[in-house]
């Protein structure tokens, strides 16, 4: 465990450099928040509530969901890259579990991202677009825990996509497809509760709503009390389940590496 913590820490330092890329992504994110703000105000022009949410709750939801949605990627592309270039063979000889190393690196990167970009964006959202605070102190704490679970889930899921590079060369297409599905079904564009009933039903049996919709709904109070605990239980279940799938396909894939003689 200690070596993964070391990797995690080193990654925090690496990404802690302000570059032109950083500013570009920050400005783009602010643009996104501005568009959301005006778009939803236009939506609410003729009605006070939509799907039981008033404008304030909606703005709060979409802004937090948009910011949280930026953490739904993972180390999958790095893994795919290692597989494609053959770097994986060297990585496998190192004294760590590659999956865990990648996760540690990814979480390290996300920690710096959180401090560098998520916090300032939340401040911007709070100051200029008047998003509200969490429903209650409990909701706030549960939101933090649930967000971490959501980010972990997305990270594990992303590694599975990266792992597919063992079987297909066109991982970038898969990646975009994954991005589209996650973007939509995680609820980072719009609350799942606004989906048509059939889509809501499908969504309940998919892991994606555990990524963004659950934590943000806990924040806004749409999911609370007993339901909140249940939803977080579902999050945990999905993490364990997808992690198990990941490990199983990982050992399958490793057999392939040995066959290649890599």
């Amino acid at each position, binding site marked *: 465990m200690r070596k993964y913590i070391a990797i995690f820490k080193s990654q925090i330092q690496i990404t802690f450099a302000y*570059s*032109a*890329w950083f*500013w*570009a*992504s920050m*400005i*783009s994110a602010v*643009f*996104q928040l*501005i*568009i959301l703000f*005006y*778009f939803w*105000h*236009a*939506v609410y*022009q*003729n*009605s006070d509530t*939509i*799907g039981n949410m008033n404008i304030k709750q909606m703005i709060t939801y979409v802004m937090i969901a948009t910011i949280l949605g930026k953490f739904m990627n993972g180390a999958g592309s790095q893994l795919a890259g290692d597989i494609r270039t053959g770097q994986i063979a060297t990585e496998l000889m190192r004294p760590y579990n590659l999956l865990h190393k990648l996760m540690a690196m990814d979480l390290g990167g996300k920690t710096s991202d959180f401090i560098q970009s998520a916090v300032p964006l939340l401040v911007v959202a709070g100051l200029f677009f008047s998003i509200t605070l969490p429903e209650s102190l409990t909701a706030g704490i549960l939101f933090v825990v649930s967000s971490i679970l959501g980010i972990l889930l997305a990270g594990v899921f992303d590694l599975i996509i990266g792992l597919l590079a063992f079987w297909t060369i*066109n991982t*970038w*297409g*898969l990646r*975009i*497809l994954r*991005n*589209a599905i996650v*973007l*939509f079904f995680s609820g980072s*564009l*719009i609350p799942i509760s*606004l*989906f*048509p009933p059939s889509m809501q039903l499908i969504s309940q049996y998919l892991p994606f709503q555990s990524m963004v919709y659950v934590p943000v709904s806990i924040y806004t109070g749409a999911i609370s009390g007993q339901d909140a605990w249940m939803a977080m239980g579902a999050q945990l279940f999905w993490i364990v389940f997808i992690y198990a799938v990941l490990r199983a396909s990982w050992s399958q894939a490793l057999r392939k590496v040995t066959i290649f003689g890599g």
Partner: protein
Amino acid sequence: MVRYMKLYWHFFAAQVKVMTEYWVDFIIGFMSVFFIQFTSVYFIKVVFDHIDVLNGWTFYEILFIYGIASTGRSIHQIFFDNLWLVGRDYIRTGNFDRLLIRPLNPLFHLIADKVQQDGVGNLVLGTILLGISMNHLAFDWGFWDIVLLIVMVISSGLIYSGINLFFVTFSFWMVDSFPLMQTAFNVSQFARYPLTIYSKPIRIILTWVVPYGFTSFYPATLFTGHKNYTTLALITPAVAAIICVIAYGFWIIGLRAYTSTGN
């Protein structure tokens, strides 16, 4: 001019030939772009399940705006995509010199070097959106209206490309201006929706500073029930021309700087 058109055709044909050989990549690229764009459209659909009009705009009017934006963007993506890579793949690597030892306009060579197949996804989606929404607009489509729409879509593509060209030119001084281009390009996200939903300063910026308003919203008003913007809508081709001239002029200045300082 004729020579360049013929040459472009040769460049184009050679690349299409390669694409047909790697058709799986083509399908995946096409599907992925199509799908990610479809997500945004479906998002609008879900919102309109709960409301009838958005700031005076119906669902199909919004789709129509989106359709013009997508088709215009696809022109930019299919034919001018290489602009994005000037810094990373040409100037940083020194490959830009290759363009300069050819008896051609380097900008032409650069653009002809790449036909981006993924843009076809946007083209198809945009055309479908236009097709669907046109049927639902309260507008009598005649032959010349279609011609006008096509002119508007091409102008939209040229505006995207011109703005892109303007910002990529900074690469001549700063090696890779990609983040700058990305930021400028992201402004175009505003133009997916009717500009009327935004506050006045934002509308002014999108009209006169980074004129993405002309890539979709203003031209769209010609064919919807919103008649207050006819003049702005009709000058769209002129805006496209002016932007391309300004961007090209800036490019020439950048090129001169490059040949006098090297890399």
